[in-house]
């Protein structure tokens, strides 16, 4: 931390007119500046500083942005102290960057914690399942240090039922639990949270693996009226007690967000919608009738149920959709700002009547089953679109590929306000990507996944260098980039030259030589997260980033050309970096090359919970 700003002359005047930290020498420094006249007795010193600290406290508590707070804490010791006292939201981007004890010692009044564990490539089975990111040590520390904890947001952590039980026991005012891409727990743990967290407002389980312990956790919520505002459990893949859910919804007048899992049929959905027309976010469950509905039986009026939900702005689910039911959502289309059809295998024809009404849509997730025609329909109507994700229905390299550069071009022409795109396809052209870079200059996130490895521009046969080059050149706000297709070192030279704001970069099956990685490491000062797989970058390239690794959250490199010698060199040169090497024993082909490298800055040094397969250099 920076030194106190000692202002000379050592004025004993208490009236600090200018900078308030001129007097922050305070009690800690004792008589440092005492070279002046002896007029100011020592014991007077605490008083003005106390005032100052109170002033600071009252001012700093308005500071919410963590980046601003981090900057404030560097000003001097007093500011550091006060900032630590007034911070209420703690964000930890890598749970191994520091220990729970260090966090709880510095920040004593935390109400909300965000904690992230595994790197993103763990989602794609690239990490051993026992790698780590255990929530247990954190919850133990927080149970003692933050009894007033209200919110917890975890991403890619391993959370056990025991951890959830401890959480439920320890925080009497607990309000919000959000688990994204987590695993290790089951419905037993949920039952505990439901029954013990009496102030619970938010229980959001998003893309997490929840084991079915055959516990009726829905029934564990208290019988009295609840302050529940958000209940998201679409990833919980087990049957639930529907009657209990219906009663829960009925006694939760504040409920605004409800995302059901696929065990809920459309008939059941109807019953819930009737109970909760105030919903703003709805995940529909399976969107098909349950099997035991007799054919020809009078079906409920779904259209009216949707029409009654006048506040609905976000719709998702449609897990096992029978497309005939899709028109039921017509009444809400005009108000929708977010629509997630990414589990719905529908065609362009089925999409068109829906999307035609979605003028206010800002976020759209779809499957490529809608084809280029469907994307053209989107482009024609959704002028406010900020975020588009197009997922493949058939996620393998040799599939048909119903979307292509045609769809991308159409979107770029119709949706000029686009900021974020994730697009899976089988074929693409530089022209379409260049068009997007010019038509959508506000792009912040550009992730293009051409699923066939090393695929060139399918019209010209050239590498995709120019397309991605145009993106980094023309999109001045770009912070996240994922590249694919046939790419030479040239693409990386573009990224290094123009990608000055890029913070996250994903590379797969790309580049020719060490120069590629070199360009990026030397050219991108804002780079925080770099994930690379199956690219020919070796030790020399790795070493060229030494100046930058302390500024990054992590670097991941798998199936590249790194040797353990190279990784050792890094570990020796940068003592505050944890360098983890994972070698797949089964993989003989790797020879001398390291299979997986994951390295990150840390204040704690090597962790002690790594499995055998991980060696920390």
């Amino acid at each position, binding site marked *: 931390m920076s030194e106190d700003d000692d202002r000379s002359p050592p004025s004993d005047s208490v009236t600090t007119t200018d900078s308030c930290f001129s007097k922050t020498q305070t009690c800690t420094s004792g008589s440092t500046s005492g070279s002046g006249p002896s007029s100011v007795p020592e014991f007077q010193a605490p008083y003005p500083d106390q005032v100052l600290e109170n002033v600071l406290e009252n001012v700093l508590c308005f500071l919410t942005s963590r980046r601003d707070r981090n900057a404030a804490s560097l000003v001097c010791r007093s500011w550091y102290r006060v900032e630590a006292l007034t911070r209420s939201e703690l964000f930890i981007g890598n749970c191994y960057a520091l220990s729970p004890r260090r966090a709880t010692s510095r920040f004593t009044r935390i109400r909300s914690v965000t904690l992230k564990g595994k790197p993103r490539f763990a989602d794609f089975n690239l990490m051993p399942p026992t790698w780590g990111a255990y929530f247990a040590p954190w919850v133990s520390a927080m149970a003692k240090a933050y009894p007033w904890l209200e919110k917890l947001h975890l991403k890619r952590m391993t959370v056990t039922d025991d951890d959830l039980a401890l959480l439920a026991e320890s925080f009497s005012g607990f309000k919000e639990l959000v688990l994204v891409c987590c695993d290790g727990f089951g419905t037993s743990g949920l039952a505990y949270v439901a029954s013990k967290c009496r102030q619970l407002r938010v229980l959001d389980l998003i893309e997490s693996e929840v084991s079915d*312990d055959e516990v009726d956790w829905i029934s564990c919520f208290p019988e009295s009226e609840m302050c529940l505002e958000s209940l998201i459990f679409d990833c919980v893949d087990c049957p639930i007690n529907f009657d209990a859910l219906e009663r829960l919804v009925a006694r939760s007048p504040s409920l605004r967000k409800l995302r059901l899992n696929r065990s809920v049929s459309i008939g059941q959905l109807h019953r819930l919608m009737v109970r909760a027309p105030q919903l703003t976010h709805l995940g529909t469950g399976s969107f098909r009738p349950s099997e035991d509905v007799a054919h020809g039986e009078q079906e409920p009026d779904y259209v009216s149920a949707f029409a009654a939900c006048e506040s609905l702005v976000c719709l998702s689910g449609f897990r096992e959709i029978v497309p005939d039911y899709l028109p039921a959502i017509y009444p809400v289309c005009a108000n929708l700002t977010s629509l997630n059809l990414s589990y719905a295998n529908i065609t362009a024809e089925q999409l068109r009547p829906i999307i035609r009404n979605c003028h206010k849509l800002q976020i759209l997730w779809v499957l490529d089953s809608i084809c280029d025609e469907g994307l053209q329909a989107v482009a024609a109507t959704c002028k406010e679109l900020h975020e588009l994700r197009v997922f493949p229905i058939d996620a393998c390299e040799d599939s048909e590929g119903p979307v292509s550069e045609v769809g991308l071009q159409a979107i770029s022409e119709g949706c000029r306000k686009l900021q974020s795109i994730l697009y899976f396809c089988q074929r693409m052209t530089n022209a379409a990507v260049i068009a997007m870079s010019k038509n959508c200059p506000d792009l912040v996130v550009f992730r293009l996944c051409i699923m066939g490895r090393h695929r060139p521009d399918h019209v010209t046969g050239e590498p995709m260098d120019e397309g991605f080059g145009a993106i980094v050149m023309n999109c001045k706000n770009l912070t996240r980039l994922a590249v694919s297709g046939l790419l030479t070192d040239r693409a990386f030279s573009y990224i290094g030259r123009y990608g000055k704001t890029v913070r996250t970069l994903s590379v*797969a099956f790309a580049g020719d030589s060490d120069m590629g990685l070199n360009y990026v490491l030397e050219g991108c000062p804002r780079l925080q997260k770099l994930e690379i797989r199956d690219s020919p970058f070796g030790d020399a390239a790795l070493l060229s980033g030494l100046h930058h690794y302390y500024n990054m959250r992590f670097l991941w490199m798998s199936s590249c050309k790194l040797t353990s010698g190279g990784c050792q060199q890094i570990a020796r040169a940068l003592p505050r970096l944890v360098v983890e090497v994972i070698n797949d024993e089964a993989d003989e082909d790797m020879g001398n090359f390291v299979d997986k490298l994951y390295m990150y800055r840390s204040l704690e040094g090597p962790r002690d919970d790594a499995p055998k397969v991980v060696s920390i250099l």
Partner: protein
Amino acid sequence: MEGGVVYENDLNLKATELRLGLPGTERNEEQPVSCTRNNKRPLPETRDQDGGTKAKYDAPHADPDTPHAPKAQMVGWPPIRSYRKNSLQQPKQTEAESAGMYVKVSMDGAPYLRKIDLKVYKGYPELLKALENMFKLTIGEYSEREGYKGSEYAPTYEDKDGDWMLVGDVPWDMFMSSCKRMRVMKGSEARGLGYEA
């Protein structure tokens, strides 16, 4: 005709089972499987189709890293989360736990369940030790006549017929094949069970 899946391991129970049908009608089905134990040589037709609460049988060679597609696919490519892939491909597919026979274990007084993998244990002593560690208690010594002596806890299990039996009453292999779930009982209830056959 018996509905559902044939369990190749539950030979001895058939002898005591009451069912309608001529005696000996099922013997032929079971003979070829009589030596299979603990999934050493699973037959394709024993693949569980309804899944759900029955004990799961899985090919021992299932490797979590091996991609399922017929062509050689790279691990983790294209970068789609397996949750999404599974949701789209076969909505009704049961989860395949690649090498495990998981049963739920509850304990009287404990707030939530655990799941354990029976295949990990080679016999009763190991299993009991694991339970002791898991729930922080002592279970005592088993005797056929008197159940578990020396502690107030007794491990019990529910078998395929829905009966609650004392753990240890049947040979280990039979237990493995018939155990659906376990419960560590406490107090007099446990003692009562000990005196049953």
